[in-house]
């Protein structure tokens, strides 16, 4: 399996992974906040705001976790 062992492709793979990780967490956080606003609390936009902040934090946490894994594998 040459490509994943090739340093260029391995680096590309890791870079692509982090980008999606940040985005996905932001979407999930914002989505949950928006859903809470619209269906549960009828609280204007506060749910969306808080959800986005939590989503951003979760995305960075996921990216951090991935980065820790590379250190181990070298």
């Amino acid at each position, binding site marked *: *399996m040459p*490509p*994943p062992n*090739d340093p260029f*492709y391995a680096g*590309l*793979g890791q870079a*692509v*992974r982090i980008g*999606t*990780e940040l*985005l*996905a*967490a932001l*979407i*999930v*956080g914002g989505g*949950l906040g928006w859903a809470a606003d619209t269906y549960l609390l009828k609280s204007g936009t506060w749910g969306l705001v808080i*959800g986005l902040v*939590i*989503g951003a*934090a*979760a*995305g960075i*946490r*996921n990216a951090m*976790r991935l980065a*820790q*894994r590379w*250190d*181990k*594998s070298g």
Partner: protein
Amino acid sequence: MEESPLHPFELHNYIPINLFGLDISINKAVIMMWVVVGLVTFLLIRAATSRRMVPTKLQSLAELFVGFIRDMILDTMGKDGMKFFPFVATLFIFILFCNLLGLIPGTYTVTSQIVVTAAFSIFVYTMSIVVGFVLHGVKFLGILVPPGTPGWLLPLMMPIELVSQLARPLSLAVRLFANMTAGHTILGVLFGLTITGGLLIGWLPFVFTIAMNGLEVGIAFIQAYIFTILTCVYLGDAFHLHGAEGHAH
């Protein structure tokens, strides 16, 4: 004859089938999946039946695959993870062949449909949750509490961890879908430029089409690899609650 570069992704039903209000029509994507399953089964059975000491080309390729997937599982899940070898190997080889066969002009890339990738990722994620609860019981909820968190931070950390967990299936599905769709759209646009450019300047985008095709083969491998290794990582997290993170700190 302006045509959207996203046009090739549209699916048209060849044989419309409706089963109790459920649309299970046969379209290009379904046929491609059958082709992939048939091809993989044929190749692997051919590779496995010879079983020579000095392997044939096909056999050594299959052995390379098996060794690669085994190393991946051992790295992320440890010895216990080998129970999942058949599942992980099937997933990897299926996605890889879907990606690679889709690069042949005229065929269809099944993994450029988010329905397909989302079905995979939701299945994988649900499985990791079920495995976690079966192995650890209620203690598996501890996955929401990172080790070493001071008590007063818990109300903040729990929602963050919950969102970061829920983001996993989404990022898994979107990553594969987006990479495949984007790659093929670029190829489509470049090839469109070749045709409109004519002989004078059209050769330039054509050269780029060929170069991009080479890159896309690499991307096909990488995306199949990332999808499978993250499957292993998620299953591994369910196996060893905080085990991997304990080492990292």
